[in-house]
Structures are given as C-alpha cells and as structure tokens.
C-alpha cells in the first residue's frame, strides 16, 4: 500500500533536516502505529506525505499503490486514496460542513472518473455515517469545525474519513485533546473502517489510543528516523519505561 524509502526532508525556510532517512512499509489491511518523543518528526512525516507546502524533500521516495506520491498535488494524493486526519483540524468560517464534504467527495469521484453523487444519495449516506459518530444534524449544518469542541473536531475528521473512504489513512495525534469517551468513539469509527483493502498509520504519543485501535506493527521514531519496530508490546514498553531506554538501547 505505502512504501517509504530513505525519506529525507526539512522545512524550506530553515536549513534544518527533520526527516533523516525514514524507511517504512505498510501493507493493505495493516494498522501501523508510530510513536516517538516530541520533535522526532512524526507530524512532519504526515505533512510531507499529504503534500503540505513549505517542506523540502531532499532524498528518498514514497510509493502508494504503484504511483510516486511525492510527484502529486495534495488533491491528487487524496483522489489516489490518501487521507490525513489532522492533529489540529482548521476552522473554515462560511463553508458549511455538508457543502465541504459533498464538494470533496465529488471532486475525488470526478478525478477518478466516477460519477458524482446526487444530493439525495449523498445526504442519506452522510446521515448514516454521522449518526455512528454521534455527529448531530446541527454540526453538519454549521461551518466546518467552527465552534466545535476539541472532541467534535476530531470526530469530524473521522467522519470525513468515513465519507471519503480512503485507502491509506494517516491519523496525526488524533487522540490529543480527547477525553476517554471521545477517544472510544473515535476508535470505534476507525475500527469500523478497518478492512483488507485499507491501511492505517496511527501517529500518537501515548499507548492508550492503541488499547482501542490495536496495531499490527509499532514503530518508534526518533531524530527523524524509525529506530525500532515491533509488535503491540513495544507500545506497552514505551508506556512503562518511557522513550529513554529504547533510545539508549539503539544508540
């Protein structure tokens, strides 16, 4: 599904390397978690994959389902099946949540040569998916994320994921700012989307999200590289001992 090879990247404006040779392979049907201390490059990796401006890729490649991801515009990556659930979902005053979702879905369908969904079918589908995430009609009518609580914003991200049905989902610290109940709701939403044709890359600081979204593989990232890879037990090790031991052991 996603193959990252020797990825080096940094901020355009600063002469500072953030990613220093990331190698990662995520197969269809798998859930991978990336953990790591602050400043290890986790969020940068998610932004570089989604195509945000301001990052300079100096070396390496990223292949998604056979196409070179880094050559594509952000909207082309989305149409190819990539989705990033943002750590800080932005508020868009004046753009209705429903309008936004429908525009996005139809833009992707159009880009893939599929027929656009009519208003009635879209509404039916949206209502069903919103209900599962406990997102009210009122939230659908409001401008995107405006006046939403932290938890509502994250649920709204998962709703977008459910509507757009991407192949490769990246969740950037989706658990940050969530209380236990909200985290369960988000995890349920993610688990409902798990399937043999879809893969997840879950970026998180804490093990607790991984109690709810159980990963197949856990990676530890530090100083811009994956330094250790293992099973779910690796996350527990971090939870108990912190990162220091692992950093020391690979140093």
């Amino acid at each position, binding site marked *: 599904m996603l193959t990252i090879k020797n990825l080096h990247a940094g901020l355009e404006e600063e002469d500072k390397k953030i990613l220093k040779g990331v190698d990662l392979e995520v197969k269809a049907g798998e859930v991978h978690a990336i953990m790591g201390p602050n400043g290890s490059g986790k969020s940068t990796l998610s932004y570089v994959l989604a195509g945000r401006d301001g990052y300079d890729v100096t070396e390496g490649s990223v292949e998604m389902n056979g196409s070179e991801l880094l050559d594509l515009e952000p909207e082309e990556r989305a149409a190819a099946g990539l989705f990033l659930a943002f750590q800080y979902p932005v508020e868009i005053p004046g753009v209705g949540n429903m309008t936004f979702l429908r525009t996005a879905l139809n*833009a992707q369908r159009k880009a893939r040569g599929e027929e656009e969904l009519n208003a009635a079918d879209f509404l039916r589908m949206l209502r069903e998916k919103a209900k599962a995430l406990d997102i009210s009609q009122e939230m659908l009518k409001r401008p995107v994320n405006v006046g939403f609580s932290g938890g509502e914003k994250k649920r709204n991200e998962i709703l977008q994921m459910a509507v757009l049905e991407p192949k490769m989902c990246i969740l950037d610290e989706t658990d940050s700012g969530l209380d236990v109940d909200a985290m369960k709701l988000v995890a349920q939403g993610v688990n409902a989307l798990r399937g043999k044709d879809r893969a997840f890359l879950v970026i998180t600081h804490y093990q607790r999200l991984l109690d709810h979204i159980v990963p197949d593989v856990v990676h530890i990232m530090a100083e811009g590289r994956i330094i250790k890879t293992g099973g779910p037990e690796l996350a527990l090790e971090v939870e108990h001992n912190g990162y220091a031991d692992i950093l020391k052991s690979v140093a």
Partner: protein
Amino acid sequence: MAVPALKLDGAQTLLAAAPEPSGEASWARSVRQAAARRLAERGAPVRRDEYWRYTDPQSLTCQPPVAAAPFENDEAPLFGGADRLKLVFVDGVFSRELSDPVELEGIEIQPLSEALSTDIHWARELFGVLEARGQTPVDRPMAALNTARATEGFAIRVHGRPGKPVNFVYLHEDALSDAMVHNIVRVEAGADFTLLENGPAAARFNKVLEVDVADDGAFHHVRAQGRDHERRAVTGTFARLGARSTFKSFTLTVNGRLTRNECVVEFTGDDGIAHVAGACVGEGDFRHDDTVFVTHDAVNCESRQVFKKVLRSGAMGIFQGKILVKPDAQKTDGYQISQGLLLDDDSQFLAKPELEIYADDVACSHGSTCGAVDETLLFYLRSRGVSRGEAEELLVLAFLDEAIAEIEDPALADDIRARLAAWLARRRR
C-alpha cells in the same frame, strides 16, 4: 474657503450637459433649481476633494461619457425565480412593453415624471429632501446633479405589506448611454417593503434612491449591479429612519470599470436598525468604492456596515465608512467592518474607517483587514481532494458570506450565493 474654479466650471458643464426638465409642478421645479444651485455653488467632484482622493471622478463627469459595450451573456436573469413586480429600464428609460403593469396591492406607484407634475404631499416631502440633507457635512455633487436633472424613476408609497417585492431591472443596450434615474420610496408606519434592483443600466449610470421609513416600518433592499466590464456607475442611497424602523441594504457588484456607491443613513427616531452591506468581486481594470455615512441622532439605534471585496489582477477596492454619533444619541450600537481579499500581489484595498462620537454611553466598533487567501485553509481543503481553484472559490464565497448573510430573506440570499458561485466556477473553466 473659496471653491476652486475647476470645480465651479465642472458643475456648469454637468448641468449644461443634461436638459432641464420641463412641464413639472412648481414645487418640483423649485426642488430642481435648489439642487442645481447646490451643485453650482459647491462644484463638481475632483480628485483633490477629501472623499474623492481614492476614486478619480473624471470618468463620471467627463462629456461625453466613455463608451462601454454591453456585455453579452446567456444567463437567466437574477431574481427570475422570485414573485415580483418587474419594472424594466433600458439604458435608463422605463419600458412599459418589457415591464409588468405598474400596479401592486399595498403600494401607490407611479413614474417619477408623473409624481412631479402633480401635487402629491408625500412626494413633496421626500423628493430631493433626503438628498439635500445628505449634502452636509460631505458634498455629494453627483446626487445633486441627479435631483436637478433626472426624469426617469418611480415614486412609491407603501402601506402595509405588499405581497411581493418591486424589482427594477436595468438593461444596458447602447454603448454610449448616459443615464440618470431617481427613485423615491416612502414606507408608511408599520409597512414592510422589499426593493430589488439589478442590471448594468447604462454605459454610465447616475442613480439616486431616497427612502423614508416611518415609525415601525421596514425597508429591505437587495441590489446586484450588472456584470458589464466597462460600465461606470455612481449611486447615492439616502435613508431616513423613524422610531423602531428597519433599513437593510445589500449590494453585490461583479465587474464594472468604476463603481461608486454612496449610502447616507440618518436615524431620527429611537430604536432603529440600519444594516448596510456590500460584496464585490473584481479583476483587472476594476475600481469599486463604497462610501457610507451613518448619522445617529436618536437613542438606542443599531447600525452595521459590512463590506467585503475580492480583488485580483490589479483591481482596486475602496471603503470610506463613517459613523457619526450626535450628543443625544445615547445607547448607540455602531459596528463597521471592511475587508479586502487580495488574490494576487497586484491588487489594492484602501480603507478609511471614521468614527465621530459625541455621546458618552455608546458602543461603537470598527475593523478593517486586508490579506491573501489563508494557505492553511487551502491545504486543508486540497488534502480532502478539492482542487486548488475550487478550494479558492469556496474560500472566496465564505469570505463574502458575512456580507451576504445581511440579506434577511434566505431565498434572496441563496439566489445571490448561487449566482456568485456560478460566476466564479465559470471563470475557472
């Protein structure tokens, strides 16, 4: 200070260029003569005038006008879906053939020339009266010219709630037309009226609207100035508000070489509400100027000015907005926001917000911003599969929506939104 000869000569040229109306009642004649005197004494507008510093009036005053080709398009007319009394002007001249019969239950309506030829008390108390009041403290010479010379337009008196709005449709056919229209509307106590206006009108258009809203009356105004690229327009809206009355005016402007919209509002009764809003989208050789003056001379009135301009490829947007709160206008709630969205480095937005407050128990706020499309928002939309062009359109529409949301009737607001979206999408293709 002596008025410069350039301004005085300019006024004579303007007055000489349009024929003096004849055959009207003596009261109307004296109103016209007084207006001509106002213009002759204070002079034509020139770039050196404080309120014309950002908009050169030369192309509004030059003789003859600069030619402007009518813009051919196959769009369905705006407000076509609304149940309305449609009154059509072609190059500023009323056309009975193209219009609905001039009658509507709940209003008295007649062509201005008829109203000025008889002795109608309410018209006497309105025609040229609000325009004259609006000349202090800032000169509005083009409006004075209009009162002195315009013969086209309608006089409307509203009782109760007419079942539908009146829609003035201004068609433009002649590339050299130089039109003047003057409408007066008296909304009687407790009455509620909606006026729609749309169309490019003429190569050069000088329009005045005087609106007198009596106690507990409501006046709603939705206007879309036509899309002709080369047209020029100067408009003056003068409103006087009685106690507990409402005045809401929204203007959409897309294209046009030069547009100067002046709006002068005066609260004379307590507890009134006035919202003046504008949304404009222009590119290239486009200059759009909103000049607003709201005077609070009564207690507990609320005024809002909301102006949004989207500019690209060298377009220029101007906002001059003033709130004047007189000493007795306690509990005034005044608000003013003007914002420019610049889609490239070539465009400009100039704002001159002014507050002048003589009462001590008031809340007045104003803000003005100017900036580019937010890249963070753009990326968020694109990361969901929306193309850059479409994402920018969504953000442009969102930016303008605060002004459009000032339209009280949701169907009319949606009509404006849909039209704007279609225009933007058409541009992208």
